[in-house]
Structure formats: C-alpha cells, structure tokens
C-alpha cells in the first residue's frame, strides 16, 4: 500500500470537516442577519415559542426532577464514604445549575425540537413547499429559520432556569423525604452556596444550546436529500450534530466561566 494513502484519507477527512464547518457558519450568519432585518414573521415566531418552550416543559421538568433526585442519592451514597453526606444540598445545587440543568435541557431540546424542526423543514423541502415559499416572494431563511432560532435563543434559557429549579426541587424532595435532611437547612444551604455566576453561566449555556439545537434542525432540514430516506437522514444527522455540538460547547463554556 502506498504510504501516502492514510495521509490522503486524513487530509480528505479534514477538508470535508472544514467544508462542513464553513457551510454551517455561513448558514448561522445568514440566520443571524435574517433575525435582525425585516420583514419579521411574528406568527411564526409565536408558533416557534410554543413549540420550543411551552411544549417542551413536561419533558424538561420530568428529566430535571428525576436527575435532581438521583443526584441527591448518589452524592449522599458517595459522600458517606468519607463522612461528607451533609454536602448534598450544595452539590445538587451546583451540579444542576452549572452542568446537568443546561446540558440535560439542551440534549432534551436536541431530541425533541431539533428532530421536529429538521423533519418538518426536510418534508417541506421534499414536497416543494420551500420552492413554493420562494415563488410566493417569501424568503425561507426569514420565514422558517429566523423565527425558530430566535425563539430558541429566548426560550431555552428560561427552560434551563426552570429545569435548574425543578432539579434542585427533586434533590430537595429526596433529601428531605428519604435522607432525613431538615427542609429549612437544605434550602438555606442551597441558596447560600449558589453564586450569581453559577446562574449566569447556566442561562448563557441555555441560550447557546438553544441556538445550536434550532440551527442544526434548520440546517439539516434545509439541506436534506430527496424522499423519505432524505428526511430520515436529515433528522438523524441534525440530532447527532446538535448533541455533539452542545456537549462540545458545554466544555468550552465551562472553561470560559470557571477556569482557574
């Protein structure tokens, strides 16, 4: 085998990755410019707010409450190994607000919203509805992409905030009911331990993850292939990309906010 072949393959993979990053960046910049410039579509924006925000509340709430409860149990069990059971409220709070709240809400949004956006837009593309929009003098980026991305930017931080509170409440419920913590002391420890930066980082992460989730749904939908297979691939690809990008962005943002 030619010794240059692996190098050639590596080079091709790097070029493909760079091209994909370029296309996504261009798409994101296009979406941002359409968010800022009229015409605006308030009705579409309202629908997107409902879909991304309100309708995601049940899944976000359930995910957060179970995670908060499980976290309390784990910290209690782990802390017991070195007599540190008392830190449950503090670690649940910091764990939920800094990491688990934003990441789990982001991943839930990727699963629920990214997939639905990608499937909807891809189906519109396959059935020529996007061509129809253009012939009706309506820019698809403005009508389909901008409202969804803007709605996610606004509403996902709210969802993260709600998820954080519900997660802490889950931990509180387990701590007080199962682990014998004093209710008032648990709440006081939680509130005292959290700092404004913890909450700010959580909300900023929510905004970034929301934009990633909506953008990936729109990008893969708008660039889907033909037929049912094209829609399926777009949906799968959008969720994979959104999930990986959310986790990568989480790592970067955690470094930005909390690096020592």
């Amino acid at each position: 085998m030619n010794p240059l072949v692996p190098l050639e393959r590596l080079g091709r993979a790097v070029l493909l990755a760079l091209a994909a990053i370029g296309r996504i960046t261009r798409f994101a910049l296009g979406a941002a410019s359409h968010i800022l410039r009229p015409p605006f579509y308030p009705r579409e924006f309202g629908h997107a707010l409902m879909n991304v925000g309100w309708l995601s509340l049940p899944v976000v709430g359930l995910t957060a409450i179970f995670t908060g409860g499980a976290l309390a149990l784990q910290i209690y069990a782990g802390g017991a190994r070195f007599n540190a059971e008392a830190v449950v409220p503090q670690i649940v709070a910091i764990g939920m607000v800094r990491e688990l709240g934003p990441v789990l809400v982001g991943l839930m949004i990727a699963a629920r919203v990214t997939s639905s956006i990608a499937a909807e837009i891809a189906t519109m593309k396959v059935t020529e509805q996007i061509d129809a929009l253009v012939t009706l003098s309506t820019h698809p980026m403005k009508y389909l992409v901008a409202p969804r991305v803007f709605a996610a930017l606004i509403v996902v931080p709210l969802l993260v905030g709600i998820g954080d509170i519900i997660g802490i409440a889950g931990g509180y419920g387990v701590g007080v009911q199962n682990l014998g913590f004093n209710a008032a002391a648990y709440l006081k420890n939680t509130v005292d331990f959290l700092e404004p930066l913890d909450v700010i980082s959580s909300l900023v992460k929510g905004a970034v993850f929301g934009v990633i989730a909506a953008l990936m749904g729109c990008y893969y939908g708008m660039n889907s292939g033909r037929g049912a297979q094209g829609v399926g691939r777009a949906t799968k690809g959008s969720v994979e990309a959104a999930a990986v990008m959310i986790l990568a962005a989480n790592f970067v943002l955690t470094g930005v906010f909390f690096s020592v």
Partner: protein
Amino acid sequence: MIAMRGVHKAFGANRVLQGVDLEVGKGTSMVIIGGSGTGKSVALKCILGLIRPDAGRILVDGKDAGSGDRDAFLARFGMLFQGGALFDSLPVWQNVSFRLLRGSLKRPLEEARAVAVDKLRRVGLKAEVADLFPAELSGGMQKRVGLARAIAAEPEIIFFDEPTSGLDPIMSGVINDLIREIVVEMGATAMTITHDMRSVRAIADNVALLHGGIIKWTGPVAEMDDSGDPYLDQFIHGRADGPIEAVR
C-alpha cells in the same frame, strides 16, 4: 415575453439542460413535454430563479431574469406545483392568500380571506373548504387549491408543473379545462410541463419537446400531429420503438 437562450444546467456529471432555446409569447400557453428526468421542471425552476443555470440567458420582457428587484419579479408569477406544495400548517384560505397576507402585496385579513374564498369558488370549491387544512383534502381538491393559490394575486405568468399527475381521467379533464379557462380569462402567459397528451391538447397553444437537454421540436399544437419529427411522433403516440430510448 419569456426567452431561454442557450440555457445549460448540470447536476454533477448529469447534464440536464444542454443549451435550451425557447420563446414563449405574451398571453400564449406553452406546454413543454418530454420524458421523465429530461429537465422540464429544471427549466421552469431556472426561469423562476429557484435553480441557477450554469450558462445561458433567461429573459422576461427582454430583461435578465436574475437581475433587478426579486420580489417584484416573483410577484409577476404564479405556480401550481406537481404535488400541490400546500403548507400543511396553514388552513386552505391562508394557503390561497399567502402572498396577500405578507410582503409588498399585503392586504387586510378580511380582504385576503374574501379573495381566497373567491378564488376557491373560481376553481370549483365551496367556501366551507376555506377553513380545512390541506391534509383533509383529496388529491384533486389539493390541485384546485394549488391552482387557486397560483392565481390569487392575479399574476401575469403562470407555471403549471404536471397539473394532472396522480389524478383520475375525469378530474384531469376538469383541471385541464379550469387551467385553459383561467389562462384565457386572465390573459396570462402560461407554461405547463406534462406527460399527459390530453393536457397538451386541452391547454396548449404551442408545444415544445425537451429531449437530450435541448428543445427537439417546437411549434403550434395544431401542427404537432403532422410534424414529421420522429422524436415527437414517438412521444405523442407513446411508442416504445423510436429514437427516444425506452428503458425496460
């Protein structure tokens, strides 16, 4: 009014259009026929700017189709898509009045709804249909709604992409008659692509056969049967033998 001059378009190695030359006169009805995958839809989409040609020029009223105010350009067109391309999330009347509910042609809600109901009536649908969603309609009704949407803003030029595909012969006849009536009534320029020879005879003033990426024959519909062109003869008689290769 519409002129395509040496239009080329390839998708990778697949050279779909290889120098299409076609003229469509103002107020006339041109039907483009040709086998599946010969680029008929691509030609229409190139005129509308949905697909950018690789080479050649497209002129509308002597002006380059790709230059000037895009909204004003598109406001002159209406299009009936093959599958209807109705927006699932909107009720029928908002589909029909889509252009009148936003952008430069925006009108008050009540007026836009009244126009929609009027256009629905024009294509033979009752006012009750206005509040249904596209998924609640049959294929024929969806075509009619698509037709109503295409004519809602009174365009000067209307494109019909396979207007009778997927319909039974009776409904096909109804749609063909509707298209002919509406085009004549509005004095619009029409371009239709179809395989359906009944549609050709019902709708066309002129016919063009697209094959091998170029226009093989074009002329008045009355001359189609005596053209002497072997490609056109084979196509209109649906023969497997002839210069057009039939994949079996």
